[in-house]
């Protein structure tokens, strides 16, 4: 039987601080409204995924790819297929030679 989980009692493991940290890491601007809605949604999703804690899996090898074959390896051959203009064509801010971004302070 597949039981739909119950989400009424959220642990609220994600607080405002965490949302701020995550949005910074994700480079998504944050504000009060965004933070509040994320706290709600992320906690409900986390509560949902925490079902996995029921399983004892300490000896299970993690699976990152279902593909069962050797990694394909290409030869060391130079291929020129793109012109500079192709590469820069879609850039919203550019000049003749470069992508342009706001000044970086290292």
């Amino acid at each position, binding site marked *: 039987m597949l039981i*739909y989980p119950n989400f009424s009692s959220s642990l609220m493991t994600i607080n405002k601080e965490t*949302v701020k940290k995550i949005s910074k890491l994700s480079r*998504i601007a944050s504000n009060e409204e965004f933070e509040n809605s*994320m706290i709600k949604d992320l906690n409900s999703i986390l509560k*949902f995924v925490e*079902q996995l804690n029921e399983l004892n899996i300490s000896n299970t090898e993690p699976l990152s790819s279902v593909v069962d074959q050797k*990694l394909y390896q290409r030869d060391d051959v130079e291929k020129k297929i793109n012109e500079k203009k*192709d590469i820069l064509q879609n850039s919203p801010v550019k000049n003749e030679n470069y992508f342009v971004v706001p000044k970086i302070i290292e």
Partner: protein
Amino acid sequence: MGEITKLTLVNLVSKIKSKEISALDACSDYVNRIVKSKKLNTFVTETLEQAISFAKKIDDNNLKEGILSGAPIAVKDLFCTKNVETTASSKILKGFVPTYESTVTSKLWERGAVLLGKLNCDEFAMGSSNETSAFGNVINPYKVNDENIVPGGSSGGCSAAVAADLTVATVGTDTGGSIRQPAAFTGIVGLKPTYGRCSRWGIVAFASSLDQAGPMTKNVSDCALMLDAISGFDEKDSTSANTKKEEFLKNLNRNIKGLKIGIPKEYIVDDMPKEIQDLWDKGISWMKESGAIIKDISLPHTKYALPTYYIIAPAEASSNLARYDGVRYGFRASGKDLNEMYENTRSLGFGNEVKRRIMIGTYVLSSGYYDAYYLKAQQVRRLIKNDFDLVFKDVDAILTPTAPSSAFKIGEKKDDPISMYLNDVFTVPINLAGLPAISIPAGFDQSGLPLGLQIIGKPFDEQTVLNSAYALEEKIGFKSQVKDWWM
């Protein structure tokens, strides 16, 4: 005129090849219908003029060798198409015109198909109802009591366009059910091939270890033909499978006598509508009638598939979507320094569902949480795959419903991410295990909305999946009930 768009892909191509119908006539009929079908919001970009001139070229030069010769086809806007805007239905890719063509779509055009345009989808394929698109939701050609219904997602533009005869067939992508669930919601056939069967090169990535392109068609034969067209090893995709080229349409047959079909008990869910259970039971008896042997099986980790998916998919997505930063393509917002530019661009460029998933994905990968979430999900993924490996020692294919419900009203589940995610409960395990699975239309619920059955196969055994579906299709005798109400 007008009847051409009712033809199946296999029939249309054979009539074009035999010159019974010209490529131009076929194309024009589709173009006319597309022009009159704006209400469904299926297209993000139309390339109708180019389509007409390409169709003319096919007729004039008698280019009728290809297996899709003259077939007018629109594709999900997740496939990069050379010189045609590609957006993944996101504001952040607005204006992006690739200088390259995805492997899958280039195979379509090489085989003679004609591009009609790019089909709407959930933003970056993240959704199950097509409501997350930056270009508005697609409307299901099926309607209930004058209320608009979702076409499923994320390939909702695809499913609606096939159901409404706006493209003779299409290719979608399926990360957790995005081909099969919308196919079920609109009464069409949708196949997610084995992971690695079709190249991912040139497809806007959502979750790389799960994404797979596949056909969405009017019937099973069309599906086999489309798979013939788009599958194959690609040395530009390290995860594409180096298997021998197969001929799915040629080997398509209804003989499933003695085939062992598994029925997983874990797919019986608590509050699943009775009509879905009934349909599943009917499917079982149709299979028996065709000579298949039914076996009860168990896939014990099924209930952990959705939570596993909602860790792995967002984690991969958070990284895959990092490239949308306003520097090399697409939308860019201003900012006083580089980070502010990034943050504003991504905050304004992405919709809410995408942001939600990026945030979750970043969280489960971040230091201190990786082992508890991401690593654990990968371990459970192994258990889920092991479940399938084990049962496939005893059965040749598995029969389940495609989705736990029929299509729902637009807006009905929009504010509750989890209830939306539950739509994919029967489809997600298949992506996690990398298996092939098809959804075929199998009947209607009491309000007249289509319902689908899903057949799951062993890795790279699409032929058995297609043959079972072909046998079932004949027993079901599904007839489209689309009424052209929008025209």
